[in-house]
């Protein structure tokens, strides 16, 4: 039994000239919550569909819970709960009938979980699925995935259509029942605020490539925004410098590593370092995926003020 719940090995998926997934090597450790982040169209859903056997890779391979995709797909599906991006289930069946249909596939099915989450999420059990709102449909999909008691949960936009109460309940369920239970959860989302509070690990994908994969705590302790004033400040990016925005004698650097060393270097050059501050996940995300724009005038390119969201 290896340490990784999901491991992809230079996974490639090409849809007639579009490289949806480009030599992606993900490492999702067992037992944690992994936030799979990226813009729309970055390749998150395609990657997930490959892991679940809905699509075949053009090149490369992957293992899920130690089983190879394709060859051992059924073994993977026995142990994996899934909520798809499109929350589509059989429209003519009610939630109750969907439970009845689904539980036959899973020996570990928990009826207690069904009862509990039906209550928690206030799911209407006797209306046809097609007549439910998006939020309720999402809840039904969550219910089916959670009741499986699977070793691995792959959730693609699990809060689609949920109102704030629903989102809060979902977060509580993740915090209470999923995290720290030895289960692995991969959440694909661009709701960064939700990911930020719960993820152990973060994997950021853009144009099918992995830009960043690390513990969330490490990312937060290593990324820094350095504001400096002075003449002749370095303008170029480097391995550690993600972006540079300058306005006259002032310069803002987003650094992904060794922030203190860089700040000291700037001071040695005679610059005044006015601020070395941490960055929220949203800022880090935007910095890493935003297209390179060179702007040296006015406020262009300035990093938006972090939106602080209290609980």
């Amino acid at each position, binding site marked *: 039994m290896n340490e990784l719940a999901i491991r992809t090995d230079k996974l490639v998926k090409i849809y007639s000239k579009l490289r949806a997934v480009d030599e992606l090597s993900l490492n999702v450790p067992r037992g944690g919550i992994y936030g799979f982040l990226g813009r729309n169209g970055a390749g998150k859903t395609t990657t997930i569909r490959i892991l679940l056997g809905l*699509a075949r890779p053009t090149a490369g391979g992957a293992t899920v819970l130690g089983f190879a995709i394709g060859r051992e797909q059924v073994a993977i599906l026995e142990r994996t709960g899934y909520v798809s991006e499109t929350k*589509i289930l059989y429209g003519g069946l009610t939630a109750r009938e969907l439970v009845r249909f689904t539980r036959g596939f899973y020996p570990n099915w928990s009826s207690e979980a069904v009862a509990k989450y039906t209550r928690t999420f206030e799911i209407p059990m006797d209306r046809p699925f097609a007549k439910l709102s998006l939020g309720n449909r999402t809840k039904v999909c969550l219910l089916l995935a959670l009741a499986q008691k699977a070793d691995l949960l792959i959730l693609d936009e699990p809060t689609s259509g949920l109102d704030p109460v629903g989102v809060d309940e979902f977060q509580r369920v993740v915090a209470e029942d999923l995290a720290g239970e030895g289960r692995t959860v991969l959440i694909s989302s661009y709701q960064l605020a939700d990911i930020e509070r719960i993820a152990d690990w973060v994997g950021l994908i853009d144009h099918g490539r992995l830009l960043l994969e690390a513990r969330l705590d490490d990312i937060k302790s290593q990324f820094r925004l350095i504001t400096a004033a002075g003449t002749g400040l370095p303008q170029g990016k480097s391995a550690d410098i993600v972006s540079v925005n300058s306005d006259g004698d002032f310069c803002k650097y987003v650094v992904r590593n060794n922030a203190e060393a860089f700040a000291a270097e700037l001071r040695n050059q005679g610059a005044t370092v006015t601020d070395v501050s941490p960055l929220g996940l949203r800022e880090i995300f935007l910095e890493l995926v935003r297209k390179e724009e060179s702007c040296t005038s006015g406020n262009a390119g300035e990093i938006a003020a972090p939106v602080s969201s209290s609980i």
Partner: protein
Amino acid sequence: MYIWKCWRDSRARFVINLILVSAICALVIIMEAKFGGPASYQMGKPASGVENMWATVGRMVLGGLVSLVILFGALTFGAGSIGEEFKEQTLGFLFTRPRRRRFLVWTCWLVGACELLVVIFLGVVVIFGGLTYLSGRVYTWRLLTAVVPLLVGALAVYTMTYFMTAVARSSEKGISFGLGILMIDLLLPVAAYFWHRQLTSIWDFMRTGCAWAAGSARAFPVEQFIIYAALTMAFVLGAQLVVERMEV
């Protein structure tokens, strides 16, 4: 669990076909009784004097209208069963359940096949019962074996449409293709007749098989039986391959 789902989806179609086929069988029997067999005259002369009247009736009654209704019914089964999944776009859900895709393909197919069997069997029983009543004595039990050629013919059309639906990923396209092929198969012999060629259609096979079942001296069309049975298997295996390789 999937069997339950397939059954639930096909319930309406099954009942409609059941009623339709039984009703037509009953209707034809009643017509035979009332008008002394207009079907015999409309369908042409009996093939040879060796055949007894009952064989003629068997062929006309079963082989004619009833076979056609069964064939068209089989089309709807083929497009409807697997087409349901495509219509609802629920393949993403179904294919992420821990079952091999071939299991799902075969299960879905089998449910439809069993339903067809029941529909056909009931129709034959109605004919059998009707003829027994009309003739005043128990009709030859061999008539019940008419189920075999009818079923094989129906299964061939059903499975062909099933395969088309899987390839086209749509029940509308599936039934269109299936209908097109069926029409070609039915009409080609008619066209061939004008060029003095002889072609048999699936309809001919079903009628001949029914004639044999009704007690005619004609041999059972073994060759065609094997061909259609093999085609059926080929189509369902083809559907399996298509579905296994499908990307959703």
